[in-house]
């Protein structure tokens, strides 16, 4: 019984914690411009993140080695350093976007300009990372993120033309060019498979001291929680497709992105969705900030983690603090957080193979995994995704330049 509660709680946390500012922005923008015609990319992304999160969770449970350890160990110091540079840069960019997102949610709730909210959000986030226990932290914000389920209720209340939505699945709109279509496909994939998610997931496994016995929990989180989060992403896109697409409106702010919920459910729904957005972005603020500490520490072999007292992991906590400060400064330059998000999604997509390649290799290495090496199915999927991610990585930046970032 106790085990069941733990598994359920884990699933709900993964579900609520799945959506972050990247998923929110990418799905709302794509829904309004392309309807449901890019839904398949979300599905591909969800399967991909499930495959690699499962591998990295399994490695963490069996060998206690988190993802960036593997990157350094299998890719070597040079390629590892390139990966570290890219991941760290993307991480700080994403962190800035999440802080901005949380501040924007507070602006929607209070009417006070978001820039006033940025410093307090950053300060509170840092305090949480400094003092609050890992599992408490993860649970509270994961569960609060479940408030975003209100998008599903809103979609149902909006009463969309389901037939029309289904037709869109296979028919991209005629007035958008192919490069723009592909560019947004890459952004969606970057949103679903962001590298920080596996850094955080596997390091979290080590923080929570997973062993082989926790493999069930890890797999339940991944195979149930993540797909549920994916359904939420699709619902956000469907809401945008229902409300914005017919009138050619294209949301470019957080306020506009939650408009469908206000239309469908009124003030109460609006309150819940703002809470959900805040929880999701604030939770992701913690995840990205910790991930920057995780990746740097794991590359250099420093003691990391919240499972030891802050005074016992000085370099780790200094890294986390420094990234929060840099990200806050970036947002305070009044750069648009939504734009930052869009760019960080595409850069994420470009960096994906660097992170996932060593995971796939180690998941096959019996020195690490013993009998728990990948099966044929995992390997077939993993190899397929490696090819796909390589193509995506090569295409991402050229497409971004060619389409002027999707304009």
């Amino acid at each position, binding site marked *: 019984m106790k085990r069941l509660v733990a598994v359920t709680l884990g699933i709900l946390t993964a579900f609520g914690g799945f959506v972050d500012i990247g998923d929110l922005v990418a799905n709302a923008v794509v829904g309004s411009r392309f309807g449901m015609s890019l839904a398949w990319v979300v599905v591909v992304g969800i399967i991909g993140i499930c495959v690699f999160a499962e591998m990295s969770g399994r490695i963490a449970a069996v060998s206690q080695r988190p993802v960036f350890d593997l990157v350094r160990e299998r890719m070597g*110091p040079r390629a590892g350093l390139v990966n570290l540079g890219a991941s760290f840069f993307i991480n700080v960019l994403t962190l800035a976007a999440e802080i901005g997102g949380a501040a924007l949610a507070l602006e929607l709730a209070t009417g006070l300009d978001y820039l006033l909210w940025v410093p307090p959000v950053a300060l509170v986030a840092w305090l949480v990372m400094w003092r609050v226990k890992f599992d408490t932290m993860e649970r509270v914000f994961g569960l609060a993120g479940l408030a975003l389920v209100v998008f599903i209720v809103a979609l149902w209340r909006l009463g969309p033309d389901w037939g029309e939505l289904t037709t869109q699945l296979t028919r991209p709109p005629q007035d958008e060019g192919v490069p723009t279509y592909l560019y947004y496909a890459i952004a969606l994939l970057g949103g679903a498979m962001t590298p920080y998610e596996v850094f955080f997931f596997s390091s979290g496994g080590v923080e929570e001291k997973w062993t082989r016995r926790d493999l069930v929990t890890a797999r339940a989180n991944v195979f149930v929680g993540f797909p549920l989060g994916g359904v939420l992403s699709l619902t956000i896109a469907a809401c945008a497709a229902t409300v914005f697409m017919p009138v050619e409106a294209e949301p470019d702010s957080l306020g506009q992105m939650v408009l469908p919920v206000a239309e469908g459910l009124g003030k109460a729904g609006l309150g819940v969705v703002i809470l959900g957005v805040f929880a999701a972005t604030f939770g992701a603020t913690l995840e990205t900030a910790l991930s920057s500490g995780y990746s740097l520490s794991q590359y250099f072999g420093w003691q990391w983690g919240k499972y030891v007292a*802050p005074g016992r992991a000085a370099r780790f906590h200094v890294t986390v603090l420094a990234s929060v400060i840099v990200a806050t400064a970036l947002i305070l330059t009044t750069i648009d957080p939504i734009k930052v998000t869009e760019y960080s999604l595409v850069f994420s997509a470009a960096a994906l193979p660097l992170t996932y390649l060593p995971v796939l290799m180690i998941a096959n290495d019996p020195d690490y995994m013993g009998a728990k090496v990948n099966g044929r199915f995992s390997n077939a999927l993993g190899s397929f995704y490696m090819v796909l991610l390589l193509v995506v990585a090569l295409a991402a930046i050229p497409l971004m330049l060619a389409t002027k970032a999707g304009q």
Partner: protein
Amino acid sequence: MSEPARVLHARLHLLDRQVVRESDDRLLCKVDDLEVRPGDRPYVTAILSGPPALGPRLGGLPGWLMTETDRLFRDEERPGPYRIEMSMVTEIGSAVRVAGRRQDLALERWLTGNVVGRIPGAAGVEEQDAPDRALRVRERWEDRPDTPRIGGLIGRTVRGPAGEVAGNVADVCLVQDGPLLAEVHQAFRTAGLLIARRRAGRLFGYERGPGLWRPSLLGALVRRMHGEIRYAEWDQIESLDDGEVRLGVAWDRLRSTADL
């Protein structure tokens, strides 16, 4: 002691792995490089870590920056890397575990005292390890920049007896049959080199037996990129001068890795 001596590939099984302190599972550092005692039968004497060990392996501008930055903050004349005797190693697995009361690296100690310790609510600062007297002494005299390192062997060009290029050093084979260290266990002797015909890049473990060539697509790709991989015993190597490796026998007479 009838079981065969343990064989490791230095780059695959040792380099870049996490070093963990046995007594309390504290993460200490990475195996940034390995120190070798030269001679007829060279063997690994210590794990090296920190910027002076990682910098040379990185090479190029980043490596130089790392080494020089470290030098700026050290008061020794010729600062050496953080060093852990191989005799302290208790286990080599997904991490390398070491016994004893190894102290943290200088940066961690400095940040604990001067940054983290000053933030309110920093628990755990007072638990910082007391400076280890024995270690201090060692840090001063253990400054031997000229001792060879495994990292310096990897990537070298290999030439045959006639001076023709035969390939590149891809990895170093270590066999645990060297002299006794601190009367506890035997040292890892450098037993030979794995030489890739075409590229100096990493083998990612795909040089091992066919049972480990998974996922098959990746295994095939890596092996194709490297061309044939052969194994040169230590006594088949004539010299290690001029940053190259000169073989005493022709490429064709080297053992193929398939028989390993």
